[in-house]
């Protein structure tokens, strides 16, 4: 979610505009000047969309060189709506990303699932894997310096396919904080807060549904 404030100019004439474009193409265009950022250089971006049927126009400028990209738009798909309602959140914690980064990088990938336990009692917040070597548990106490907010009302243990969560580690690497919320059905919401150089914040949100076969956790 990129808030309007991030942009120097933001003008949308209709209530909401939705279209679909190829993500890797978009990424290629945005990084057309290269992915490394040298100090002192900045790439400027201007995005325009004329409306239904028109391509998305990207104007990129760096050091006097201008590139124009036209990306064809497609019919938007139904957005997968997990119906994750903020008012129905059962457990919520906000952690400083620093504490999770290494943990996520070292997760035992031979485990098919990542189990998340959130509870008002010990172990408070626990990430568990069950891999070839055995089980591993990562515990964060509620009074940890990393814990910015801790609102757990009910003990919940949910398992999520680790392959679905691994991609979120990129956002984790860039973020300064992450909010972890679960609802009554065990749906998981991860919200990563990313602060850019100007101090502007934007959010990357992940939603994940729990794994069907929920079995007793091994201790």
């Amino acid at each position, binding site marked *: 979610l990129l808030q309007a404030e991030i942009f120097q100019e933001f003008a949308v004439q209709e209530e909401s505009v939705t279209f679909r474009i190829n993500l890797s193409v978009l990424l290629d265009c945005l990084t057309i000047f290269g992915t490394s950022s040298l100090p002192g250089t900045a790439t400027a971006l201007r995005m325009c969309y004329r409306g239904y049927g028109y391509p998305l126009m990207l104007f990129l400028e760096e050091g006097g060189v201008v590139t124009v990209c036209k990306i064809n738009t497609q019919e938007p798909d139904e957005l997968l709506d997990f119906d994750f309602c903020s008012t129905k959140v059962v457990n919520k914690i906000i952690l400083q990303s620093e*504490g999770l980064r290494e943990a996520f990088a070292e997760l*035992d990938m031979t485990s098919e699932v990542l189990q998340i336990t959130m509870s008002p009692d010990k172990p408070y917040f626990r990430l568990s894997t069950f891999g070839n070597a*055995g089980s*591993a548990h990562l*515990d*964060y106490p509620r009074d940890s310096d*990393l814990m910015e907010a801790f609102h757990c009302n009910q003990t919940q243990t949910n398992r999520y396919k680790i392959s679905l969560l691994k991609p979120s580690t990129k956002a984790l690497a860039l973020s300064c904080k992450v909010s972890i919320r679960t609802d009554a059905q065990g749906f998981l919401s991860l919200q990563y807060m990313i602060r850019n150089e100007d101090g502007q914040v934007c959010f990357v949100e992940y939603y994940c549904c729990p794994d069907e076969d929920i079995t007793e956790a*091994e201790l």
Partner: protein
Amino acid sequence: MKCIVTGGNVKVLGRAVHSLSRIGDELYLEPTESGLSLRTVNSSRSAFASFLFAPLFFQLYQPGGPQPDGELLRCKVHMKSFLSVFRSLPSLEKTVGKCLILLKPRANRLVVQLHCKYGVTKTHNLAFQECERLQAVFDTQRCANSLCAPARVLAEAVVHFPQTLAEVTLGAGPGGKISLRNYVEEEAEPRKTMVTELWLAEDEFQTAAVAPGSRITFCLKEFRGLLTFAEASNLPLTIHYDVPGRPMVFTLDDAVLEVHLVLATLSDPENDLQPPTTNGVSHLPAPSDDFADDLEAYMIAMETSTYEEGSGVPPSPTFPLRTPHPAKSDPEEEEEEEEEEEGAVPGTPPHKKFRSLFFGSVLTPGGPGPAPTQEVLAEDSDGDY
């Protein structure tokens, strides 16, 4: 068994595990009264390493009560699994304050728990297998030659050899100089071979009690793991070696840690029997102004030396490879023994072969002796091991 490691020692433990992982695929944990021993052996059983951490290394050390058979519980785990706990050494140093190792025989789990910064706890529950004692039989007292040098000296020497180099020969030259040379197979074409040889002066070593002209060839790869540990811990490394073919032992010692690396060495039967001056092979050319000429003569000598078979030379001694049967053998141990029996080759094997080290069981010290015609090269070492 329960033990707690704190502070800087957590990193030492991590480095030890990394070092052991360079050798074997299984880590043997053996709590003893004199400390916790971590051991491993490579698949061809030509390299054995053990790290013995004294009780003082730990904040808490409880080896545990004896099992019904009177012995303390020993177990082995997959090296990869144990290593994954200590995977990142920098992060161990930065974030881990305490490491707890707990053996839970009833739950069949070895628990390794790291207490990290910010109150975070990482708990690993690893599956383990009970096992027999892993002990290579060796005796540093029986090694005729020994050298001791700061690890740094050896590390700086070894850096000149390519990472892929398998074997290296250590030799004692004239004037007390010690040489390191990459081992070149006799079949190798001199024109396509590069020989790297470096010489260390006697004063680089803290002690050097070596027979001039003695040399020994061993696997460099397995040695590198220990060398990295030695360098990081700033401890002097002692090398004990005897005649080619007999195991050589590298040791590191400090107040709370004892490390042994035992490597099988290449045997060179013809050189043990022929007088040293007949061909250039057993005579190391010392560096001199005529070094280039010497080298050429040396290479020619290598080319022309012959390997005599059946000329009245007694067969190369082999290590008795069968371990004496322990009182009760579990399927795991039987498997190991089968492998060893397949490998037992009496007589003259091809000259380039690192024979397996002799592994003895301390459970049955007077155990069934080897066949009368076989010479026992390595007796049981003294009781501490």
